[in-house]
C-alpha cells in the first residue's frame, strides 16, 4: 500500500497493474486504520481462541479446539445463547410489528403525527446504558414509578427485574421500546415513497384501508422490512449493555447474554482464550442468521 503511495508517478512503461491512482492516497489512511484496529485484532482473537490464554501470563498453551470443545459442554454458555436468541426474536419481532403499525398509522403528515413520530424516535437516540439505568429505576420495587402504577392498575406488585419469569420479558419490552422508533422511521420513509397511483388503483378496485395495506403497502415494503429485521436481529444478538446495566445478568443467569458471559470470562476472570472462542461462536451465529434472513426474505420477492 505505502509503496504505491510513495512512488512518483510512473512513466508510460509502468505495468498496468501498478498504475498510480490518486484514489489510493485517499483510501490509504482508512485501510491502515482498519487493518490495525479491526482486521489485526480479529485475526489475533482467532489465534487466542486456540490457546489457554490468560492475561499477563508469559506462556500460552496451545489447545487447538479445546476451548470450543469446552464451550459445547458449558451449560452457562448454552443458557446465554438461549437468552440471547429469545431476546433477539422478541425485540426484532416487536420492533418490526410495532414500527409497521405506527408507520401506517402516522402516514399522513399532520401536526399531531409529527409530534408523535418525534416522541417515538426519542428513545432510539438515547444510549442503551442510559435507557437501562432509567428503566431500572422505574422498575425498582421500592421507589419505582412502575411499581406504584401497577398497584393502582390491579397488577399487584411484581418484582419485574428480580423475578425469574418476568426479568427477560421485561427486558425485551424495554428493548422494543428503545428501538421501535428507528424501524418506524425507516418504514415511514418507505411508505411515503410508494406512488399514490397504486393506492388510487386499489381504491378503484374497491379495496378498503386494510386491503390496501395488505396488497399494496406490504409487498412494496418487503425490502425495507427485510432491512430493519436484519438490523434488529444483529443488534439483538449483540445484547450486552441493557442486561449489564439493568440486571447484571440476573436473577441467576436468567438474563445473561452471550456477550455478557464473554465479558465475564474475558475481562473479569481474564480467560482471554476462552472468551475469544465465545466471540467466534457468536460471530458464526450472527453471520448464519443474517445470511438465512437475507435468503428467505429475498426469495419471497414476487415480481
Amino acid at each position, binding site marked *: 500500500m505505502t509503496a504505491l503511495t510513495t512512488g512518483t508517478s510512473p512513466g508510460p512503461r509502468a505495468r498496468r497493474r501498478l498504475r498510480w491512482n490518486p484514489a489510493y492516497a485517499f483510501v490509504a489512511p482508512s485501510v491502515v486504520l482498519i487493518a490495525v484496529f479491526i482486521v489485526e485484532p480479529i485475526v489475533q482473537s482467532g489465534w487466542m481462541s486456540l490457546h489457554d490464554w490468560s492475561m*499477563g501470563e508469559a506462556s500460552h498453551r496451545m489447545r487447538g479446539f479445546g476451548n470450543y470443545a469446552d464451550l459445547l459442554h458449558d451449560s452457562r454458555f448454552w443458557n446465554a445463547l438461549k437468552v440471547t436468541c429469545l431476546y433477539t426474536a422478541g425485540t426484532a419481532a416487536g420492533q418490526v410489528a410495532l414500527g409497521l403499525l405506527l408507520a401506517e398509522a402516522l402516514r399522513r403528515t399532520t401536526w399531531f403525527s409529527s409530534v408523535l413520530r418525534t416522541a417515538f424516535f426519542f428513545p432510539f437516540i438515547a444510549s442503551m*446504558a442510559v435507557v437501562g439505568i432509567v428503566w431500572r429505576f422505574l422498575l425498582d420495587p*421500592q*421507589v419505582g414509578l412502575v411499581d406504584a402504577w401497577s398497584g393502582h392498575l390491579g397488577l399487584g406488585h411484581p418484582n419485574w427485574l428480580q423475578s425469574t419469569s418476568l426479568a427477560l420479558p421485561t427486558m425485551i419490552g424495554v428493548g422494543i421500546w428503545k428501538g421501535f422508533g428507528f424501524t418506524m422511521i425507516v418504514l415511514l420513509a418507505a411508505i411515503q415513497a410508494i406512488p399514490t397511483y397504486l393506492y388510487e388503483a386499489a381504491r378503484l378496485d374497491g379495496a378498503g384501508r386494510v386491503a390496501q395495506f395488505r396488497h399494496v403497502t406490504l409487498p412494496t415494503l418487503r425490502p425495507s422490512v427485510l432491512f430493519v429485521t436484519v438490523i434488529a436481529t444483529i443488534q439483538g444478538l449483540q445484547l450486552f449493555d441493557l442486561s449489564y*446495566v439493568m440486571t*447484571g445478568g440476573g*436473577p441467576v443467569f436468567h438474563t445473561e447474554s452471550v456477550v455478557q458471559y464473554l465479558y465475564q470470562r474475558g*475481562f473479569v*476472570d481474564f480467560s482471554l482464550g476462552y472468551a475469544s472462542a465465545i466471540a467466534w461462536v457468536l460471530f458464526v451465529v450472527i453471520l448464519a442468521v443474517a445470511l438465512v434472513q437475507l435468503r428467505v426474505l429475498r426469495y419471497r420477492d414476487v415480481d
Partner: protein
Amino acid sequence: MSYAPRRALPSAAIALSLTALAACGSSSSSSTPASDNGKVVKLQMLTGFTGPDRPSYQALVDNWNSAHPNIQVTMDVQPWAAIGQKLPQSWATGQGPDLATPSFDPNAIFQYIKTNSVEPLDSAVGTGDAKVEVSTFPKTVTSAFTVDGKLYAVPANLATLVLYYNKALLQKAGVTAPPATVDELVTDAKKLTLPAGSSTPTQYGISLADHETIQMWPILQWLGGGDIVDAKGCATIDSPQSVAALKTWADLVQKDHVSPVGQTGADADTLFSSKKAAFEINGPWAAAGYRKAGIDLGIAPVPSGSAGPVTLASTVPLMVAKSSKHKAEAEQFLAYWTGKTAQLAFSKGGFPPVRTDLASQVTGDAKEFAAALPNARLYLAGLPTGSKVDSDVYVPLIGKITRGSDVAGAASAAAKQINGITGCKA
C-alpha cells in the same frame, strides 16, 4: 458505601470505555525516576476509595507528604471496576503505579502474583516505626496476604460487619434491645416485617443483599456452624450445618418475606436508609450515610449463633509493583500507612485500625468494629480461585434458594461445581 462492593450501578461509562481501554492499552503513568534537581522521589498510588471515606485516606497521604518533602505520594482514585480492567495489563507489562489496591476482594492478589507483577514485602517486615509490623495485623489478614511463605500485600483498611438497627422501628414494635442470638434475630425480623403475612411488606425485618455486595450470607452460615470451603479448598457448602442455616434463612426470605429478594448491596442500603427495614448487616462505611438519612441508628455486634459469635472481616490489599523504580520508598510508605500514628488518626473516620494493638485507644464507631475483630473471618480466605467461586457458584446459589429452589439439592450441585473450580479431589 464507599468501598465498593456496595456501589450502586457500575458506572456505564466504564462499560462503554471498555473498548477504548482495550485499544489504548494502559494510560497510567509509569513511575518517574527521581528528578535530578532536589532529588524528589514521586510515588504513584492507585486506589478505589471513591466513597465518603475517601478524605480519610487522602489525609493519610497528605500527612506523609508534609513530613517527607523528598518522597511525594500522589493518590489517584478510580472506581474498582476501572482498576480491575487496567491494572492487570499495565502491571504485567511493567507500567502503572508504584502502589495500588488492586481490588476490594483480597483474593485478587493471586492473579497478580501469578503474573509476577508484585513485589514480596518481606524485606520491609520488622518492628519499629520504619518497618511493617506484620505481627500486629489480625492473623486472618496476614495469612490471606501470605502466599508460599511470602507476604505480598498489607491491609489498606480493615472492616468488620455489625448489625445496624433502626431504633425507632424497634421501639414501635416493642422490641427493647437489639437481638443477642440468632434465634432472637429471627423472631425480631419476623415481628418487624409489616403488615404481617403480606407477600409485599411495606416494612421489612432485615435488608439482605445477595449480589454486587459485601457478602452477608456467609455470616448466616457461619453462625450455624456451616461454611463454603475448607482450608484445602474442598466444598463444605453441602454439610448438614451449612444446608440447615441456608434453609432457615432462605425460608425466612421466601415464605416470611423478612427481606426483599435479589437485592444488590446498594439496594439493601437504600431500603434501610429509607426506613423500610429494621436491621441490616453492614460495614463501617455505611454509618455516616444512615445518620445523614435521619435514622436513629443503633449499632450492635452480629448476634451469636450455635457456633458462637462470628462476623465477616474484609480488607483491601495494598501492593507494590514489581516494576516500581522506588521499592524502598514505597515500602517505607507502607510502614507509615500501617503504623500506629496513621492508624489511630484513620480510626477517627469510623474504620477500625488494621492493627490489633490499638484497641484501647480507639473511640467512637470504630470501637464497635474493632471489638468484632477477634471473631471476624474473611470470606473464602486465601482461596486462589475465590473470586470465581463467588461469582460462578455462591452468588447464583443464594439467588436460587431465595427463589424457591430446593436447598439441599442446590447446595450439593454447588459443592460439585466448587470442587471443579478449586480442583479439590474430594
